[in-house]
């Protein structure tokens, strides 16, 4: 691939004493939408956590090369500052941390990293307004505690809001559509599509093809038992729907 932004080579990783990723290879082409599909328990969330440096995951072998550098040893906050973003399958609730304060702290950490001026509360709120409208989020959602008492849909919108603010380069969306009603799905997809600018790269993780009607993928990768077993174009989606994952043979 000529324009690779991230290359995962023979990645092996475990959670506890259980090896989950068993020599996974995947290349992400800059500016494209990659979908990862696979049955429950295949290791999709584990892969996404490995990419952002989650403490649950122990990398046993292989490498993750991002913009030409290995990031396996990098701290999570560094990876984030370098432009990798994960929208969590299950975002945590943090009572007592004000959402707006959190969002501004995250944005300012990023701006500082890029040598830009930090934004004060008023400037920040102005920035936020347009995003909130587009995502159909009530403005009180950012004055509440981070994710506390949010519905499933609200949590996912809040993830997308963070993505819009932080403007990452590699965006990993883990089951972004799970638990969303049609309105929320539309709003979330609109947010995601807005970020497509031909440079940002998306890794859309799903075990269910519905989201791919809204975010058109360029590539489909099938993940099964800790490995990517097939890579193809978007035409693979309908084939998977018809025959399921069992029909896919490892390439």
């Amino acid at each position, binding site marked *: 691939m000529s324009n690779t932004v991230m290359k995962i080579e023979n990645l092996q990783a475990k959670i506890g004493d259980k090896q989950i990723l068993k020599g996974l290879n995947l290349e992400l082409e800059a500016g494209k939408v990659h979908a990862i599909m696979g049955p429950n328990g295949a290791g999709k969330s584990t892969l996404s956590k490995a990419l952002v440096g989650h403490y649950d995951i122990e990398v046993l072998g292989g490498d993750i090369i991002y913009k030409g550098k290995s990031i396996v040893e990098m701290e999570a*906050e560094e990876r984030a*500052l370098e432009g990798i973003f994960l929208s*969590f399958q299950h*975002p945590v609730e*943090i009572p007592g941390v004000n959402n707006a304060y959190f969002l501004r*702290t*995250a944005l300012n950490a990023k701006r500082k990293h890029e040598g830009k001026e930090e934004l004060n509360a008023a400037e920040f709120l102005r920035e936020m307004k347009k995003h909130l409208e587009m995502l159909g989020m009530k403005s009180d959602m950012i004055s509440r505690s981070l994710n506390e008492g949010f519905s499933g849909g609200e949590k996912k919108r809040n993830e997308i809001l*963070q993505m819009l603010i*932080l403007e990452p380069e590699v965006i990993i969306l883990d089951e972004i559509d799970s638990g969303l009603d049609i309105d929320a799905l539309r709003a979330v997809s609109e947010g995601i599509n807005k970020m497509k600018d031909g440079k940002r790269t998306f890794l859309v993780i799903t075990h269910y093809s519905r989201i791919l009607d809204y975010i058109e993928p360029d590539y489909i990768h099938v993940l099964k038992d800790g490995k990517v077993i097939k890579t193809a174009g978007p035409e693979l989606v309908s084939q998977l729907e018809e025959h399921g994952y069992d029909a896919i043979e490892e390439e």
Partner: protein
Amino acid sequence: MNLIDLKHKNPQEVTDLLGAKEREMLVERFVSLGLPSKKSEEYRYFDVEKVLDKAYETLNYVPKTLEVSDKIEIVDGVVVAAPQGMRIYNEACQQIDMDHFDPMYYLGHLLCPQTIKIELDGDTEVEIEHTYTQSDTLIHYRIVLYNQANRHATVYENFICEDIENTLVLYGYDMHIAQDSTLRVVKMQSMQDNHYAMIASHKVNVAKNANAILKSFDLGGDQALQLLKVELLEHAHVDAGHLLYLNADSKRGTVSQIVHVSEHSTSKQEAKNILDGEARGIFDALIRVEHSAKYTKAEQNSKSILLHDKAYMASKPQLEIYIDELEASHGATTGQLDPKQLFYLQSRGISYVEARKMLVIAFANTLIEEVKDTRQQERIKSAFEAVFYKNT
């Protein structure tokens, strides 16, 4: 003066040592409780002998003509300034509790024949600022606080000190909260670098239908203990909240007794403790419901977060109940910061140090946000951050 000299002395010897003639009852109480030591129930988690056993300088307490200020300023135990019209007197304390659990309450009274009496007028809001300027000194003073019936007053207490060392402060309140009134006392004390140690021994009398709201914010790395006895009459209510954020080798906290004396009294006591370094937090809190206090409601809770494996929390909520007709609950939990929450913040580019700070403040926030005055709230938050960053 070395307070350890008072150890195992008989009433006559104590009277002579303290020059406390005609105060036999107090001497009696002090001697029967005994100077606190490692073995005293109330002081067992606190290195009391370390702070008592020193040869301290003493001061003369001469009342001063008061300057006008926007707050009550007490320097080394003497009031030097107050808002215009504030009623402040130097006089002997009229109502001393003869059944307090704390010997230092009696020692305080014995050392302070004259107390600072403050009468709060109407719906006042006043700040009391305590300043300490002397090293190697025993500073002792007591405050007697009255408010008015049907009125709602607030006191903000703050503490500052000059670059002193090895001083011991003994102070405390006798508060008389009048019928149908509310008195809110918010104490903020950040102590660092061994400037001074403190033993504060209080008594709070809450009259019929009155509310006592007592919030303490104790931050830093030094040694201090607050001992608090609250008595609740009919339909009286106390809402006590204690935030501890300790580091270094601090031993600090609250020893309290909330006594439900009459029917339908209610109490709520909440402690939140964040302990770093080798700090030891203390929450030794008894709620006593007497025979005469039917239909009491009492709720007590202590939550602690240990940020370091050498930190330790001595949490001891206790109920002592002499009747059946009541609702009471208590509990204590101790844990660490939630790694999932920490990771979430870090995965958004927030540094480990900032993420920890956010979570620590979040834990404390329920108590901090109860301080309605935004200036005082900011003061607590920035003191919090100062201690936090000093430590990381």
